[in-house]
């Protein structure tokens, strides 16, 4: 039967898989999400006004948020690509380690763009290794991932020992066994004209958002601060990474290739009966997944810092995987999750003093939840919300300063809470992580 079906007919299934034309960025309940995001923003502004902690919505916080969000976002997209094709990629961390090392090395040796390019290639090779072990040998995906993470750590330390040790050329230039020498040139940054005072042919345009932000008007200045963070002193690498979100959405939900990738993650046996060649598809998607992870690692070694250092990835690969999950395997969801982590981390970097203010913000958020639940006559969640809100309020009143080690735990705790509350509503690709051998399941 399968012999008569022409593979090019497969895309005609698209309307069945995804009705509506706007649904490919975010799930259909987008309006509700936008409403909640908007309300949360107003609550954040309110918190800013009450606590007088300008860091909450300053452009500096937002700029830092962008910088720390990008690696997590890219790791999340790496997870998205892998899981959409049906492979659990717990080795994002390892592929990122490849990216940091090769990116840092090439950026030191040749230049930042060459570094980024090599990081992407190195990550893709890591993705192909993972694909080879799981697709060719059908090894459990998590096992292969754990092994690859160990391998990446060991192999990159080995390379450092060969290149950066004291008696090697890299060592003489200022490197060490766990650190590369500093790079000479960074990736250039830009300001957007008119919005953040960028230059057009030598003429300096007005910095409109900066002017608005300085006045500390309720909501207006806050919005300006957040927006200015996105257009002021932006690295080209960040801009490219942000563009990858709509690109991923478009490729996965609007192209023939993307449909096949998703069908391989939902039901590879059915896809194969329709003439989709699942095995090469999985290699391709894993190469893309690895490339994203490598880019993420390269960003850490070239943009976030100007040298490679062992341990630079700092579990961001795992956080990225978590954003894949609570972004509900959607590009915009991943962006949202990564921003949440990035915001927590950025606030920690820019103004740790404003962290306790988040307790007040949390109290407001709980109040919102309580109101929403009361409207729907759900008593138990509402009571839970009141209790949580009360605890947070007590926290805001009593805690002046969050201990520094605990602030580091924030993203992980947030992940667990989100997963515990939302995991019943998430829908993973049906076949992600399951064993599959081409030709044997039908």
């Amino acid at each position, binding site marked *: 039967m399968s012999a008569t079906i022409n593979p090019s007919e497969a895309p005609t299934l698209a309307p069945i898989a995804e009705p509506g034309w706007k649904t490919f960025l975010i799930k259909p309940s987008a309006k509700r999400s936008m409403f909640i995001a908007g309300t949360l923003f107003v609550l954040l502004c309110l918190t800013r006004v009450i606590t007088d902690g300008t860091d909450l919505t300053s452009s500096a916080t937002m700029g830092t948020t962008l910088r720390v969000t990008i690696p997590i976002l890219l790791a999340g997209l790496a997870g998205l690509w892998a*899981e959409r094709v049906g492979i*659990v990629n*717990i080795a994002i961390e390892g592929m990122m380690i490849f990216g940091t090392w090769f990116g840092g090395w090439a950026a030191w040796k040749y230049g930042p763009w060459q570094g980024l390019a090599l990081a992407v290639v190195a990550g893709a090779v890591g993705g192909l290794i993972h694909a080879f*072990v799981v697709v060719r*040998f*059908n*090894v*459990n*995906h*998590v*096992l*292969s991932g*754990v*092994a*690859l*993470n*160990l*391998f990446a*750590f*060991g*192999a990159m*330390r*080995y*390379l*450092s*020992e*060969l290149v950066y040790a004291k008696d090697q050329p890299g060592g003489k230039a200022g490197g060490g066994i766990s650190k590369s020498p500093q790079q000479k040139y960074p990736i250039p940054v830009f300001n957007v004209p008119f919005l953040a005072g960028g230059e057009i042919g030598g003429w300096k345009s007005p910095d409109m958002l900066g002017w608005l932000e300085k006045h500390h008007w309720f909501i207006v200045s806050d919005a300006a601060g957040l927006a200015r963070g996105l257009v002021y002193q932006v690295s080209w690498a960040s801009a490219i990474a942000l563009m990858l979100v709509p690109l991923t959405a478009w490729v996965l939900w609007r192209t023939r290739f993307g449909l096949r990738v998703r069908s391989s993650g939902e039901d590879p046996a059915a896809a194969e009966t329709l003439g989709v060649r699942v095995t090469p598809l999985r290699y391709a998607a894993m190469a893309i997944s690895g490339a994203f992870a490598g880019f993420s690692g390269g960003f850490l070694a070239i943009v976030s810092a100007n040298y490679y250092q062992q341990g630079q990835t700092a*579990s961001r690969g*795992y956080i990225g*995987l*978590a954003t*894949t*999950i609570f972004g509900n395997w959607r590009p915009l969801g991943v962006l949202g999750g990564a921003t949440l982590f990035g915001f927590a981390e950025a606030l920690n970097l820019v103004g740790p003093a404003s962290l306790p203010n988040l307790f007040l913000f949390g109290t407001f958020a709980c109040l919102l939840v309580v109101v929403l639940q009361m409207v729907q006559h759900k008593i138990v969640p509402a009571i839970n919300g009141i209790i949580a809100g009360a605890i947070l309020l007590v926290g805001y009143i009593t805690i002046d300063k969050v*201990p520094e*080690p*605990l602030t*580091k*735990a924030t993203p*992980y*705790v947030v*992940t*667990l809470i989100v*997963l*515990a*509350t939302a*995991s*019943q509503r*998430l*829908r*993973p*690709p049906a*076949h*992600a*992580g*399951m*064993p599959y051998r081409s030709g*044997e*399941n039908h």
Partner: protein
Amino acid sequence: MNIPIETSVNQATGASNDVGGDSSQSFLNRLVRPDSGQSVLITIASSLLAIVIALLIAGAILLITGKNPIDAYSKMLHAGTTSVKLVESMQRATPLILAAVAVAIGFKMNLFNIGVEGQYLIGVFFAAVVGAKVSFPPVLHVTFVLLVAMVAGAAWSGIAAYLKVKKGVNEVIATIMLNAIALSVIDWLFTSYFRYESSSLDVKTKPLPSSAWMPVLFTITRKTGKTTQNATLTSFFLVALLVVLLFWLVVYKSTFGFRLRASGYNAVAARTAGISSGRMIVVAMLMSGAIAGLVGMPYLLGESHAYGPSRPDGYGFNGIAVALLGRNHPAGIIAAAFLWGFLDSVSAPLQIAHLPQSIVLVLKAIILITVVVVNEVVGRRVAKRTADRTAAALALPTAAVAV
């Protein structure tokens, strides 16, 4: 062919959130189930084959990077087989045995406990803090400290068990997050409350009284020319062996162990026999966490006698490697832990001989990958051969029998 069953398990327990770990675990089953129809000989031979392949791959890496693999391997063999290094291997194997048993208990119930790392750190920290606050007679004190460590480890893994059973959160993600949270919580408690300034250079928690120390079994010293090497083996090695024995008795020989393995192998079938998978998940996770709590005890009770920044590190992931290498079998775990200890112990001699010591890390990772791949290939071959023989016996064409 396991897929429909596993999918229905997911639906039945409402655990539809995960990264696919649950669904993939029908596969874990094939890896870890005790009665996979393979003879012990094939298992050992395939593990050895995997190690040889790994040595070849690592040798190729050495060769490509301009190092002599023969030099490196002969140095490892030469340095590693001295009596001092063998004792050091045993000492290094001790925590790995415990970590591997903790991981293996999880595997038996189809759980992937990546959280051993966080569980033993929590165990070490609380054991150090609580153990230093009380005073007991010698044997009782050690027992008390061990109990505290086990309870702390079990409590930490219990969070993951609760999230999995009640909230449907995949344990792989939950334990990864809990590892990171454990580090932060410990750092916070240590820097804020439990620092004991004995001297400015040596920041640790308050040291345990000597009644809570584990005795040294023996110290071995060897003189080669001007340098003296020595290695000690603490009595915790015996405790580790005892834990392995208990693991074997409980998981392989008791009714409870049978129920555990049955539930891990096929939760739906086990439920028809009255075995609640949720309960088994909680019990297995708590047991795994309790054993994980012991992992840091050789360090606490044998070496440092206090918690400090020089805490042990990396036993969780290496424990996974050892459990897989030993195929979750008690004897296999001991052998694999010894191999890992051996490789760790030759790292320093390699450095002294101006050979890149990190090749040991690379070699360990490659061994892990080749072992899981070879297990898989050999397992399929054996299954195919069994099917072929059955088919031949039934005089049916091979193609009609699904593998």
